[in-house]
C-alpha cells in the first residue's frame, strides 16, 4: 500500500504541472472552438438575411427601374398589358387590412383564453383546452385554406355576411365597410381564417408569461379585496405586458406573411374596394398565385412585392421593438 502511495505521489509530482497546463490549454481550445462555432452560427443568420435581401433587390431591380415610386401608388395590375402595368397598392392594402382585422379578433380572444386558462379555469378543463390550442397551432395552413373554402366561406356568405350587411345598411362609413354582395371569398373571410391561425401564438405565449407572475403579488391583491378582473387588469397584465406584446408581434408577423390559406379564401382580386366582404389579395397570395407562370417584368414585379413584404414586416417588428422600449422606460426598468 505504502509503495503504491509513494508511487502515485511520485507520478503526480512528475506529471502534475505539465498535465495542468495541457488540460488548461485543452479547455481553452474547447472554449474558443465553442465560442467561434456559436458565433459562426449567429453570423450565418446575418449572412443569409443579407443574401436574401441582395437577391431580392437584384431580382426586383428591373421593376424598380421601370415603375419606380409609382409601384406603391398604382392599383392596376395588368401583367398581360404590353408593356405590363404593375402597381402594388392592391396587395399592400389587402395585406394590411387582413392583418389588422385578424389581430382585432385574435388579440382579445387569445388573451381571453389565456386569462381563463391561468386564472379561472377548473383544473380538469385545463388540459383539454391547452391541447386544443396546441392542435390548432399544428394544423397545416393548407388545411385551414380548404376548411375556409368549403366550410367557413359558405357559412359566412349565407349567414353572417347578410346579417351584417342588413344591420349596417344606410349607416355612414360602416355601411360601406359591410357592403354586399355576400361572398365565399373575401377579405373578411381571409381575416377570420388568419385570426384562427394566429390565435395559438398569442394564447400560448400569454399563458406562459401569465404563469411567471409571482403568486404573492396576486395573493396580496386578492388580500386587499380585489376582484379577479381587477387582479388581471392591474397585476397580471402590467407585469407581463412585454411578453404579451412579443406574442402579439409574432402572431402579426405570421398574419402578414401567411400564404396558402389566404390564397384559397381571399378571392385574389387586385382591386381595392371599401367593403371587407369583397374579394382582395395579399402580397404573399399574389406571389404564390402568379410566380410559376411569370417572366420578365412581371416576375420582377412579383419579386419587388416580396421585397415590400420584407420591408413591411421589418417596419412592423421595428415598431414593436420601439413600443417595448418605451414601455420598459415607462415602467422604470
Amino acid at each position: 500500500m505504502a509503495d503504491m502511495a509513494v508511487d502515485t505521489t511520485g507520478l503526480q509530482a512528475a506529471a502534475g504541472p505539465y498535465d495542468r497546463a495541457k488540460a488548461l490549454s485543452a479547455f481553452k481550445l474547447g472554449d474558443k472552438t465553442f465560442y467561434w462555432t456559436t458565433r459562426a452560427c449567429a453570423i450565418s443568420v446575418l449572412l443569409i438575411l443579407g443574401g436574401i435581401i441582395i437577391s431580392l433587390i437584384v431580382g426586383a431591380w428591373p421593376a424598380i427601374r421601370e415603375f419606380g415610386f409609382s409601384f406603391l401608388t398604382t392599383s392596376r395590375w395588368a401583367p398581360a398589358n404590353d408593356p405590363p402595368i404593375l402597381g402594388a397598392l392592391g396587395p399592400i392594402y389587402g395585406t394590411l387590412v387582413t392583418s389588422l382585422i385578424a389581430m382585432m379578433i385574435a388579440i382579445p380572444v387569445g388573451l381571453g383564453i389565456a386569462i381563463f386558462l391561468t386564472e379561472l379555469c377548473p383544473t380538469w378543463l385545463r388540459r383539454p383546452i391547452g391541447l386544443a390550442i396546441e392542435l390548432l397551432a399544428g394544423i397545416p395552413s393548407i388545411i385551414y385554406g380548404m376548411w375556409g373554402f368549403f366550410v367557413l366561406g359558405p357559412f359566412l356568405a349565407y349567414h353572417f355576411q347578410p346579417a351584417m350587411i342588413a344591420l349596417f345598411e344606410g349607416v355612414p362609413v360602416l355601411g360601406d365597410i359591410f357592403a354586399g354582395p355576400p361572398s365565399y371569398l373575401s377579405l373578411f373571410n381571409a381575416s377570420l381564417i388568419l385570426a384562427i391561425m394566429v390565435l395559438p401564438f398569442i394564447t400560448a405565449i400569454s399563458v406562459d408569461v401569465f404563469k411567471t407572475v409571482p403568486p404573492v403579488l396576486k395573493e396580496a391583491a386578492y388580500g386587499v379585496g380585489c376582484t379577479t378582473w381587477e387582479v388581471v387588469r392591474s397585476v397580471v397584465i402590467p407585469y407581463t405586458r412585454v411578453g404579451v406584446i412579443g406574442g402579439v408581434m409574432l402572431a402579426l408577423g405570421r398574419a402578414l406573411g401567411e400564404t396558402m390559406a389566404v390564397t384559397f379564401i381571399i378571392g385574389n382580386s387586385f382591386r381595392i374596394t371599401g367593403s371587407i366582404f369583397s374579394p382582395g389579395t395579399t402580397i404573399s397570395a399574389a406571389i404564390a398565385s402568379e410566380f410559376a407562370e411569370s417572366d420578365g417584368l412581371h416576375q420582377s414585379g412579383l419579386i419587388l412585392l416580396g421585397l415590400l413584404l420584407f420591408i413591411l414586416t421589418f417596419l412592423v417588428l421595428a415598431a414593436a421593438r420601439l413600443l417595448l422600449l418605451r414601455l420598459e422606460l415607462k415602467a422604470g426598468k
Partner: protein
Amino acid sequence: MNFIKAIVAAGMVAASTSAFAADITGAGATFPYPVYSKWADTYKKDTGNGLNYQSIGSGAGIKQIIAKTVTFGATDAPLKPEQLEKEGLVQWPMVMGAIVPVVNLEGVKPGEMVLDGETLANIYIGKITKWDDPAIKKLNPKVSLPSDAITVVRRSDGSGTTFNFTDYLSKVSADWKTKVGSGTAVEWPVGVGAKGNEGVAGNVGQTKNSIGYVEYAYAKQNKLTYTGLVNSAGKTVQPTIAAFQAAAANADWAKAPGYYLILTNQPGEASWPITAATFILMHKEPVDKAASSEAVKFFKWAFEKGGKAAEELDYIPMPEPVVKLIEKTWAADIKS
C-alpha cells in the same frame, strides 16, 4: 449466402442506376401532366425506359429548355416562330384539350344553357351582371333564369387555360381585346380568383349563380353544369370529343410555321370554339443527343400508342395527318 445476396443487390443497384441514366427529363405545363405521366408509366412498362416530367408551369418549362437543363420543355402557349428561331428550338403540338364554361344555376342541367362569345366576354368584363340579362335570355328562351347577380370565377394563378380562354375572348370581342387582352395572367375586370382548374371547379360547384371556365376533364369529373357555345360558323355546339376533334381537324397545321397555331375560334360548323393544344419544345442541336433521340422515341410511341390513354383522360389525340407532319419535322430539324 450473404455474399451472393450482396452481389445480387449490387447488381440491382447498378441496373437501376443505368436505367435511371437513360431517363428523359422534361418540365413545363401543368395541363397535360396527367396524360404525360400516364404515358410515361406505360412506356416504362413497355420499354423499360423512364420519363421524368415535372409540371412546373408553362413559363418555367420554357425557361428550363432555353437554359438546357431538361431534354424537353412543355408549354400551353406556343412560342412564336421568330422566338423559336432565336433560341434554336423545335416546337410541335403533343395533345389537345378543350375549355368549357361552367355555371351553377338552380334547376339548370349540363348542356341546357347556351352562351356565345360576346355574351361570355361581357360577363367577364362586368357589363352583364345579372343572369336575367336580355343578352342571356335571348340565347336561352326556354331556361328560367334568376334575376340574381352573376358571381364570376376565374383563375388566380397564371395558366395556359387562362391564356387560351382570354385569347378566345379577344377574338370574339373587340372590347375585351382592347380592355383586357390575352395572356396567362391578365388584369381581370371583375370576379374572384381561384387557384388551379380544381379551384375554379370547386368554386363554381359551391357558389350559387356563379360562372367559371375549366378544362373539359374537370367539368366532367366534377359533374359541373357546362354550357353549349355558339361557334364561329354561328352554330350551337356542345362540348363533346367529336366537337373538339372537329376543331382540331379544321386547324391548318401545315400552313403554320413552327406549329404556331392557337386553336380557339376555329372555323367549321361542328367545331367547339375553345380548344387548345399543348406543345413540346426541344433544341435543334441538343447537348445530350442520346437523351434527345430517346425523347423523340417516346413522343413517337405516344402518338402511335397513347391515343386511347389520352381519350380516357378526356384529352384529344393529335389527328393522323398532323402526326405525319410532326414526324417529318423531327427528321428534318432535330439532329441526333
